[in-house]
């Protein structure tokens, strides 16, 4: 775990909003020289504070009007089932996120599709045919907010 001061926290917040911001620009914003700011950013990156970067795309404009969250329960358990399921689900291009979870479901998936008929195709041909898949629950996303979190 990495200790952060107030400036570090401000830098993490700024980079979470715009990962492409330069050390020079962020330095000016927070009253640091470019090299000092660069060193702080390097320290954050080296500690693994950022898992990566995410393109914030207007999916509707790209023709992907539907996002669905799926809860999946496996019909059979065991190490081999989990590995087979995870390998197969990772390969589906419409599946953006797969979380292994504990609770009423075993996995939570975030799936994008062009429209509802396209989603039905993905569900029938790709999801329902996954190894060991059992009960599947689908919820169509209406809106989403990403919050800055406790910084």
């Amino acid at each position, binding site marked *: 775990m*990495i200790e952060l001061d107030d400036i570090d926290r401000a830098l993490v917040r700024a980079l979470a*909003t715009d990962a492409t911001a330069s050390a020079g620009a962020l330095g000016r914003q927070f009253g640091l020289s470019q090299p000092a700011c660069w060193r702080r950013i390097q320290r954050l990156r080296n500690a693994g504070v950022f898992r990566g970067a995410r393109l914030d795309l207007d999916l509707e404009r790209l023709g992907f009007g539907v996002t669905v969250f799926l809860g999946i329960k496996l019909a059979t358990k065991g190490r081999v089932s989990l590995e087979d399921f995870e390998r197969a689900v990772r390969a589906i291009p419409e599946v953006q*996120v797969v979380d292994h*979870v504990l*609770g009423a*479901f075993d996995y939570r998936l975030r799936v*994008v599709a062009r429209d509802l008929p396209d989603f039905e195709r993905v569900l029938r041909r790709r999801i329902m045919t996954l190894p060991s898949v059992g009960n599947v629950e689908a919820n169509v996303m209406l809106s*989403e*907010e990403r*919050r800055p979190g406790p910084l």
Partner: protein
Amino acid sequence: MADLAERAGVTPSTLARRLAVLREDGVLRGVRGVIDWAVLGYSIEVMLRVTLDKTEPRAFDEFLAEARLVPEVTEIQTFLGTVDLRLAVIARDLSDYQRLYRERLLVLPHMSDIEALMHVSLVKSDETVPL
């Protein structure tokens, strides 16, 4: 940038121009850094699936307004389906989560049911589209 230009088969200056157009058009809204909260000491991640009391016409608005005030809530989605909302919540450890759950989350307005899924591992995270 140079890698991306090579993969797209264009020069870096063409790439920069095309990206600028995508940004201006609003197709590319931004490039967000994805925080690994575990590295910042938040080792617990829970997804709460919430059902609201729909007899109350302002249930969604009032719930959302209150949920936004909880800093540990990192994502809020609304749905058409068996659940109405999903909150992604992070906490430092289980006792921190218990405090958060009792003091900040269970008091959110107009909930008729709440169910938790605890995050174990991230199997895939690739928020691109199959173009």
